[in-house]
């Protein structure tokens, strides 16, 4: 059996949001630097610099995914939740903390009546991403 299963779980969890961020940044850079569209029209921000907006998706989200995958590895023998259901619970922590950090850093503010419908959508996207993408990566690194 290969050693360091938690390290492999962390790396498998980090991969998906990192790849998504890469795609998002590529789209952003294409519009921002090729078409020279002003910042706030590419991403509907109130005009703060990108470095404020990117703290959460770049620093917090991937690490949370890695830690969440480690948690699943540690608890899966005792937990009745599948990997997809385990991943679907992550937005319950991430969305409020992301909105709070965005408000703190003056990136954007969002009304609760708008954020609430996004909870089931976010949980569904997370469920599918964890079931198929993280599940595939876990199989590849030998911890499925």
């Amino acid at each position, binding site marked *: 059996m290969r050693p360091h299963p938690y390290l492999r779980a962390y790396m498998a969890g980090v991969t998906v*949001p990192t790849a*998504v*961020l890469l795609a*998002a940044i590529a789209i952003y850079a294409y519009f921002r630097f090729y078409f020279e569209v002003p910042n706030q029209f590419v*991403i*509907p921000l109130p005009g703060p610099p990108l470095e404020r*907006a990117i703290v*959460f*998706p770049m620093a917090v*989200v991937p690490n949370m995914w890695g830690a969440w995958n480690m948690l699943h590895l540690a608890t899966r023998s005792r937990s009745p939740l599948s990997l997809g259901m385990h991943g679907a619970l992550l*937005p319950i922590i*991430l*969305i409020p903390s*992301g909105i709070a950090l*965005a408000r703190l850093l003056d990136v954007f503010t*969002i009304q609760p009546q*708008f*954020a609430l*419908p*996004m909870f*089931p*959508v*976010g949980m*569904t*996207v997370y*469920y*599918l*991403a964890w*079931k*198929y993408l993280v*599940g*595939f990566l876990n199989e590849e690194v030998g911890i499925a």
Partner: protein
Amino acid sequence: MSENDRFERLLRAALPPTIAGAPGHELWTRVVDRLDAPRRWSRVDLSLAVFVAIMLSMFPEGLFLLAYHL
């Protein structure tokens, strides 16, 4: 006749041959094929994906919020 030969003969007489009960085809290849088969989307997962698409078409601003948390 040695003791081992006698024991072997007794064993063969006592236990029926297992050849008749063997499967007619190789089972292990089916197991491997099933393990190697690509994961298919269930109907529930497909309907969940459709739900996300409908919700995002109704609330396109939500795409930014979603991308922010992915």
